[in-house]
């Protein structure tokens, strides 16, 4: 039993992710415990809001595993996020609320299918890196433009009105069970749902990134040609990763629509597409941990700035992006992490040098 546990932890550790010592995992466990205990002591509004802030992390992770780990710069994740919200909205409005989980599954599955198609066009069509950025940006603009034209009563699927640029309203929250025994995921239950999903996705990604597949993602990023010469079909690697990233973004989109009860084309606009790039760049694109921290923090800051008047938030983020690109190309959180590791390492070596066993002074 104990050895199985250690095997499990070993599979989660590796060069692609930060932190693998017992100290790290103990801290991780404590953070998870605090996360799950928080709703019990927190007040409703704050808990609900923080749950909402965590939803964005899925979008950030989606961009991160593509850009930081596989070298694919995609503006399209925001589109997948928004479209998943739309699919969830359309399906959940049209079916009884106790089946809303089905709507969620639909949203995620359809978006993964869409990302498979888009990914196929991109990777098997040989579109190269910078053009992938532009192609996916245009895709996002296309989605936003098309959906903005859907105002008017004729634009409906079942009883779900698409709503044009004002968006779709009346989206029911996720729910399990029916009637008196239903768990409706709002406020505190929503926080628990998002937290649990986030922990699962995070651990799942750690497992993936440190497995054979993760090595291939990194190899594809570092040197696509060389990777091919080892017998790997990089188009397949890129496509599979793209689909996984699409699924994670879609999960975020479904949670977003569920919490907001609303989804609009502005979730897929230019500004919306910029923010995930900033979270990932500022955090540290090659680290899912850094991105998790930076996404939550930056969205929190975004909210605070919006309360203060909102005019300065865009400026703040733009300056942040510029500083990150010019001064912290590795990302701010990653730079801090690396400095921390260096500090801990120096302390460790210093303690060893003092050890009498190694010939240090007594």
């Amino acid at each position: 039993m104990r050895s199985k546990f250690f095997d499990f932890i070993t599979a989660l550790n590796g060069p692609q992710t930060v932190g693998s010592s017992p100290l790290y995992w103990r801290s991780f466990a404590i953070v998870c415990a605090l996360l799950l205990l928080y709703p019990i002591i927190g007040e409703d509004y704050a808990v609900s809001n923080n749950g909402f802030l965590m939803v964005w992390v899925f979008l950030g992770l989606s961009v991160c595993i593509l850009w930081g780990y596989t070298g694919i710069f995609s503006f399209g994740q925001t589109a997948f996020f928004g479209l998943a919200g739309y699919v969830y909205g359309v399906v959940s409005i049209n079916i009884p609320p106790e089946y809303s989980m089905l709507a969620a599954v639909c949203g995620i599955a359809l978006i993964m299918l869409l990302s498979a198609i888009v990914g196929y066009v991109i990777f098997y069509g040989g579109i190269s890196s910078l053009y992938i950025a532009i192609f996916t940006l245009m895709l996002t603009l296309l989605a936003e433009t098309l959906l903005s034209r859907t105002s008017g009563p004729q634009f409906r699927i079942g009883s779900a009105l698409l709503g044009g640029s004002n968006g779709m309203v009346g989206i029911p929250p996720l729910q399990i069970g029916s009637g008196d025994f239903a768990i409706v995921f709002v406020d505190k239950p929503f926080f628990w749902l998002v937290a649990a999903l986030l922990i699962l996705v995070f651990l799942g990604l750690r497992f993936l990134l440190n497995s054979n597949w993760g090595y291939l993602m990194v190899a594809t990023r570092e040197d696509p040609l060389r990777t091919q010469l080892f017998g790997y079909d990089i188009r397949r690697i890129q496509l599979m990763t793209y689909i996984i990233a699409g699924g994670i973004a879609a999960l975020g989109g479904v949670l977003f629509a569920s919490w907001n009860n609303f989804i609009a084309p502005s979730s897929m606009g230019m500004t919306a597409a910029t923010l995930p790039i900033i979270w990932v760049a500022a955090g540290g694109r090659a680290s899912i941990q850094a991105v998790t921290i930076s996404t939550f923090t930056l969205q929190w800051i975004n909210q605070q700035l919006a309360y203060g008047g909102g005019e300065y938030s865009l400026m703040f983020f733009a300056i942040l992006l510029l500083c990150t690109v010019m001064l912290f190309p590795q990302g701010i959180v990653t730079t801090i992490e690396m400095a921390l590791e260096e500090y801990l390492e120096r302390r460790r070596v210093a303690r060893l040098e003092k050890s009498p066993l190694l010939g240090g002074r007594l």
Partner: protein
Amino acid sequence: MSDLVTVENLHKSFGGLQVLRGMSFGVPEGEMRVLLGPNGCGKSTFLKTMIGLHRPSAGEIRLAGERIDGLHPHEIARLGVSTKLQVPSVFRELSVYQNIRIAVQRETGRDARSRNMVIDETLDMIGLITQAGNRAGNLSHGHQQWLEIGMAIASQPRILLLDEPTAGMTPEETQQTAQIVLRLNRQKGMTVIIVEHDMAFVSALDAPILVLNQGSIFFEGTLRQVRTHQGVKEIYFGSRA
């Protein structure tokens, strides 16, 4: 016994520029061949065509009788063709150990024990065991070349292609590389085709030589025969075009 590798009447043109004009030769299994030739003779183009980076304009390349020309690079690699390109292209951000891991993990799958064994064996063969944890980008040029050779051989390929493996190496490193290649060929029976310039390396290998000129095989023979052949001297030093 039919050859492991056969190149038949290979042509390759880029727009109006004809680089390979009817190149033909064969290499029996387990043997080594050195490809020599003056600059511009088509050595690099041949190698790239063989590994699938270019599609031949005409002619065939066969591996154990099966055509491989026109296949994708990764498909050709899976058939057991391993390459070390001229420019060192290791995964600079990863460690030496991780570099080799990527080279072998397709073969060994999830079996961590056999994978680690293969990686250790390879490190031993190329003499980089002490550097296993170092970042590949920090290695010296010569060591990076060895790492690349290690990555090329780690998957036990049927045929190894080396494109100027000693470019930029010191004379000692060149000799050591020759020893590594000889060991691979004689102890492991690996078929090797080497494109080279460095005559010290070539003479240490002591293998049959194919002289390439203007896109086709000009002469085949031992090093001594090549050195004394009048025509070869002329294509290197001028007079005959």
